[in-house]
């Protein structure tokens, strides 16, 4: 394994893009929720886990076709998101809680404990391997990538593109962006902000659930599978500029590249694996300290 071997380099590049796309699904959901509702969903990693387990239940236990299972898993995550928004988040907009920021932080954190341990009690701590979307290998020249990962990447890109189309090419998307820019002004022109909140949270959770369902055949489904993807999502929305959609996608690809290449070129493999999750955390702290507006965020934002 030569460090500058081109085959090794391009294989790693392919891996980085795959991870980047999955991160982008997580981060786009978090970004929408933060941009429009101004809250950080600390249970987003657990929504990802719900997507993974819903796919496992549908595809492995019920034996449903993998692609139908994927749709079912996304639907489950969306419903979970809708329920969370209706029961726990919407009270913070109608003045039923005193401190919105603290309330949403603690309640979503409590929710993540609840969801993670519920799955632990029901399914046990053992990792599950749901069926692959496309078994086999894909070879191009000297680069070999598993077909599974390639298919997952394309589905991921498709979902990202669909979300962007919804945001920038439909009237609903326009309304969402209006609420994100100025909530009061949006209310004045007759946008139902309450409905937009529910839609945002549902959509954000659907994207998170999709990420979990897509990766579960590759990285397996286990109760705390969402902890690090969730944290990576936070890193990316901070890096990209909280609430910035293009920033979150660029941030995802960047983080994927940083993680794969730093791990690939650290000589001690055990350390390389263990420290893979640390770079993002360091990036998070550095960005918050040095450039709190992130890469593409609004200037003058206070952290």
């Amino acid at each position, binding site marked *: 394994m030569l460090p500058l071997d081109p085959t090794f380099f391009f294989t790693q590049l392919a891996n980085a893009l795959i991870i980047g796309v999955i991160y982008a699904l997580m981060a786009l959901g978090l970004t929408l929720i933060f941009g429009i509702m101004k809250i950080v969903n600390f249970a987003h990693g657990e929504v990802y886990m719900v997507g993974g387990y819903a796919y496992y239940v549908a595809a492995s236990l019920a034996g449903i076709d993998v692609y139908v299972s994927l749709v079912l898993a996304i639907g489950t995550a969306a419903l979970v998101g809708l329920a969370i928004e209706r029961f726990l988040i919407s009270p913070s907009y109608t003045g039923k809680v005193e401190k919105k920021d603290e309330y949403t932080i*603690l309640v979503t954190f409590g929710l993540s404990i609840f969801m993670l341990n519920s799955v632990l009690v029901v399914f046990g701590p053992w990792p599950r391997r749901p069926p692959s979307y496309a078994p086999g290998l894909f070879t191009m020249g000297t680069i070999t990538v598993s077909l599974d990962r390639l298919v997952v990447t394309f589905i991921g890109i498709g979902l990202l593109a669909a979300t962007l189309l919804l945001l920038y090419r439909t009237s609903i998307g326009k309304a969402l962006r209006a609420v994100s820019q100025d909530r009061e002004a949006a209310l004045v022109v007759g946008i139902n902000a309450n409905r937009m909140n529910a839609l945002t949270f549902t959509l954000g959770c659907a994207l998170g659930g999709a990420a979990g369902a897509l990766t579960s055949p590759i990285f397996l489904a286990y109760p705390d599978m969402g902890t690090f993807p969730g*944290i990576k999502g936070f890193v990316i929305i901070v890096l990209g500029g909280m609430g910035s959609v293009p920033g979150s996608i660029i941030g995802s690809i960047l983080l994927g590249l940083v993680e794969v290449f730093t791990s690939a070129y650290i000589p001690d493999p055990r*350390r390389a694996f*263990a420290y893979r999750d640390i770079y993002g*955390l360091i990036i998070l*702290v550095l960005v918050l300290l040095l450039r709190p507006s992130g890469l593409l965020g609004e200037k003058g934002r206070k952290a």
Partner: protein
Amino acid sequence: MIISKPHVLVALALAIVFPFLAPSYWTHVMIIAYYYALVAASWSLIAGFTGQFSFGQMAMATIGGYTSGFLSLSLGVPPLIGLVAGGAMAGAASYGLGYLCLRMRGPYLALTTIAFSECFRLVMSSEFEVTRGTLGLSVPPLFAQWGTSKIPPYFLMLAILGVSLFILARILSSRLGLFFRSIREDEDAASVMGVDTTKYKVLAFTVGGFFAGVAGAFFGHYLQLVSPITGSLGEMGLVISMVVVGGTESLAGPVMGALMLEGASEYFRVYGELYKVLFGLLMILTLRFMPRGLLLPLLKRVAAKIGPQLGVKAASAEPIR
């Protein structure tokens, strides 16, 4: 104030006779509960009173544990001195974290402290040669001369908790406590009124970190094991649920929350992780429907109802501000 001197004395008397009446196993459970009570009370100083929702408190406890552990392993420092050293180290680390997060509010503070706590846990888990990784570091016991009896560590932890709560209560009822609360209520307004918010925020972090460090150092020596799992977000969630359920706006809340939940977790332990599901649910419901906490306000209501019948003057229902 609902918690008055007689309440404290009765609680203390019960705590003193407890280990002589209860089986040794429940003495052990109470020691763990006191440890959580101290961490919960120290977190409540930073989050409940000063309004800085940091998620790094269990990392501070773990720093205390490792500091005391390394000191006793490499220099032979007795654990009792290690407790203070662990507290000092955690206080220093917490000072640093507080300083780093000075300008951050709400979700940004939460994200940064989560990042700090996870970085620390990952490094401690990965540097196997120094820390023995997730297996945990074996450290000497508190009282080697008394064997496995639970009574000496019980009274040590009770004394630590009592003294710490006394100090914390004195701080909170002084001018300093008023400054802390003014930052929680409205940081900008406090600053305009002449409160040096920078200084007092960092001070809250330092004091809170110190007590968490002492608790963590005790916990390490008591179990004779310091493990990075102590600093995980799951443990942090447990402590937060104790504070939320107990009540965030007094010291008695976190302590009662810790005693109740740790006791309940032992009761439910036969059902595996079910207790964490219940705690998570209890935390969500408390936040949603009883934002001032469940246990302490409930107790207040009961006291207000049955107090007059017993001829006791009803305690003020006003929350401590």
